[in-house]
């Protein structure tokens, strides 16, 4: 079989491992899960993201069998598991609270599940030893849970839930207590385990970076509902709502009024480009190497895009734009380039303040014209410089704050009207030699496709 991208959710033939069908869970009159429908496929690494109390643990507990849905069905391999008790489900869960047995040693904790299904001592020994090695706990096997550190406890919980090699493993914030390095290692360990064993993982995390690293798909939840389910890059690059944009990563939200974009005279005079035909290798393509960086979508991808994602992403060609036109890494490098920007046509303009030039969003959905919208703009797509940059969208402002994050810096710039905009720039030079500092008047610029135009949340 040729190397294919793992994306069973795009395959209408694929059978999901887990199906939530209109599942609602109420505690008294409080609705914790609200009419949730979701398919999760075998071998997925599915991440649940959402603020505290949005129902992530409740979802897991329904899968593990500790809660029964008030309404709706949960299917595992096509079978309703509503009546199956937790001890009969091929599902293991790593508890948010670890739930280690305090009276048993680390070894016995890990062996607990194995002993329930087999009496074969050798098999149990071998498996426990393997788990101990995997989680690097061999030295602590004889200790009780209160004699090891928080991170070690977390690993015991992980080892215990992995030991039975379940079909479905539920991880409720599995790595929260680990330091960054160990967390990253464990993340890769998890992905490795997943690859080796073919286990399906559902992971709850508060750490978006973690979700982005490990997950095949991410579901963003809010108050018992799923707001968006998509691959990490789509969630990041094309959030479907202000909520998702705001929840994932850092974002500038610029509210305004959308209008259908007139073919701007400057744009027309810059490049007389016809409406974006699907002809590849347009002359203006700023990235010459179209080999690996720009994979062409397959037929289904094209169909998906044209039928579903276009309103969000804009035209297909335009989608690749933000990736190719990342702002230059360092603000100092921005020259007053005479090369005109490639400004695609169409889209909307957003009036964000009276008397200011409206912002251009070439990827904006014209159906949003006349509506109150929000332009969601990632800080790394906003360039900052002392000279007026050559960008379709330009804002003036003053640096209020600079957050130095090592490899990059985030500049908090107050633009006219008082709105704060964050811009990020790579720190290619040493601190002392960087030109922009507090109170400086600066220019912010971004391309016509850098942002995502979203309908204002109700």
């Amino acid at each position, binding site marked *: 079989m040729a190397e294919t991208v793992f994306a069973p959710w795009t395959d209408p033939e694929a059978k999901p491992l887990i199906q939530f069908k209109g599942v609602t869970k109420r505690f008294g009159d409080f609705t914790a899960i609200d009419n949730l429908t979701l398919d999760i496929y075998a071998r997925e690494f599915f991440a649940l993201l959402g603020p505290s109390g949005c129902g992530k643990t409740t979802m897991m507990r329904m899968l593990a069998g500790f809660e029964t849905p008030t309404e709706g069905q949960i299917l595992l391999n096509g079978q309703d598991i509503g009546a199956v008790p937790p*001890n009969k489900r091929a599902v293991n869960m790593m508890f948010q609270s*670890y739930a280690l047995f*305090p009276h048993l040693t680390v070894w016995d904790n890990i062996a607990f599940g194995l002993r329930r299904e087999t009496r074969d001592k050798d098999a149990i020994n071998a498996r426990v030893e393997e788990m101990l090695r995997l989680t690097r706990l061999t030295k602590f096997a004889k200790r009780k849970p209160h004699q090891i550190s928080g991170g070690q406890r977390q690993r015991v919980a992980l080892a215990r839930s992995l030991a039975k090699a379940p079909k479905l493993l539920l991880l409720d914030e599995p790595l929260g207590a680990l330091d960054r390095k160990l967390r990253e290692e464990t993340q890769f360990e998890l992905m490795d385990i997943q690859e080796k064993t073919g286990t399906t993982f559902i992971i709850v995390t508060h750490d978006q970076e973690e979700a982005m690293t490990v997950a095949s798909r991410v579901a963003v939840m809010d108050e018992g509902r799923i707001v968006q389910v998509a691959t990490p890059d789509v969630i990041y690059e094309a959030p479907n709502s202000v909520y998702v944009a705001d929840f994932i990563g850092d974002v500038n939200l610029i509210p305004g009024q959308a209008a259908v974009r007139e073919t701007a005279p400057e744009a027309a005079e810059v490049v007389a480009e016809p409406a974006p035909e699907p002809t590849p290798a347009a002359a203006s393509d700023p990235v010459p190497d179209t080999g690996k960086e720009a994979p062409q979508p397959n037929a289904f991808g094209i169909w998906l895009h044209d039928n579903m994602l276009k309103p969000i992403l804009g035209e297909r060609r335009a989608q690749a734009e933000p990736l190719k036109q990342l702002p230059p890494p360092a603000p100092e490098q921005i020259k007053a380039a005479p090369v005109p920007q490639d400004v695609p046509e169409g889209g909307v303009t957003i009036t964000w303040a009276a008397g200011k030039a409206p912002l251009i969003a070439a990827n904006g959905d014209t159906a949003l014209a006349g509506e109150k919208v929000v332009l969601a703009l990632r800080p790394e797509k906003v360039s900052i410089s002392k000279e007026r940059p050559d960008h379709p969208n330009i804002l003036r402002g003053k640096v209020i704050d600079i957050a130095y994050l090592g490899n990059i810096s985030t500049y908090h710039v107050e633009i006219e009207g008082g709105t704060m905009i964050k811009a990020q720039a790579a720190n290619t030079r040493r601190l002392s030699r960087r030109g922009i500092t507090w109170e400086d008047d600066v220019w912010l610029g971004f391309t016509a496709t850098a942002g995502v135009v979203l309908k204002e949340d109700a």
Partner: protein
Amino acid sequence: MRRFSWFNVTSLTLGFAFLYLPMVLLVVYSFNESRLVTVWAGFSTKWYGELLQNEEFLDAALVTLKVGLMSSTLATILGTMAAYVLVRAGRFRGRTLFSGMIYAPLVMPEVITGLSLLLLFIGIGLDRGVLTIVLAHTTFSMCYVSVVVSSRLSSFDTSLEEAALDLGASPFEAFRLVTLPIIAPAVISGWLLAFTLSLDDLVIASFTTGPSATTLPIKIFSAVRLGVSPEINALSTILIGIVTVGVISASLITKRAAVRQAREEQAAVRS
């Protein structure tokens, strides 16, 4: 350290004198050489020796021990089960009623408990003897056990049981392998408490006993009606000793276990 004021000292002395003077007197007179209670004739342990010769007392002691062991064991099993259900079953209709009913015998006058049990035993035609006392003692001491055990259970992290189920244990295995070992100290101290209660119960035992079974408290009570003897004092002193040891070890076990468990649980559970 704070100094005690004269007021504190006085009230403390008075309170403890009130509580313990009678018992101290009893213990002291059990070592009296003279048979007369009012005259101190020097230290002696001869009444303890004589006690060992007294068949009746020894029989009564045996009955008491038997009743105590059986009833406390039965009460521990039933009380633990009741506590488990009441704490775990969550909010079902009538839960408050049930828990209230379990605890009611704690405040019920013993005479009434004794009388109603007597009526029951007569009603079902049960011959009164060791068995009926065991049943009666189980009835009233089981609520003490369930109070002790349920207070431990309510601070027990349910996710431990869920984890056991999740790992494939049946509900009974989860209880036996996880819950029980963890709440064991509370169960043991419940047992000790039940045993002590059974040991010193007079009222209920005298209602439910028959001619074949006389417990120590009953024996002492009837002997005293013929006059206080130093032998009785010696016997009572021994009883006081046993009860004291029972109660103190029960509370020690609970306390030590509570401390250890708090530490372990805090460690085993995040946050």
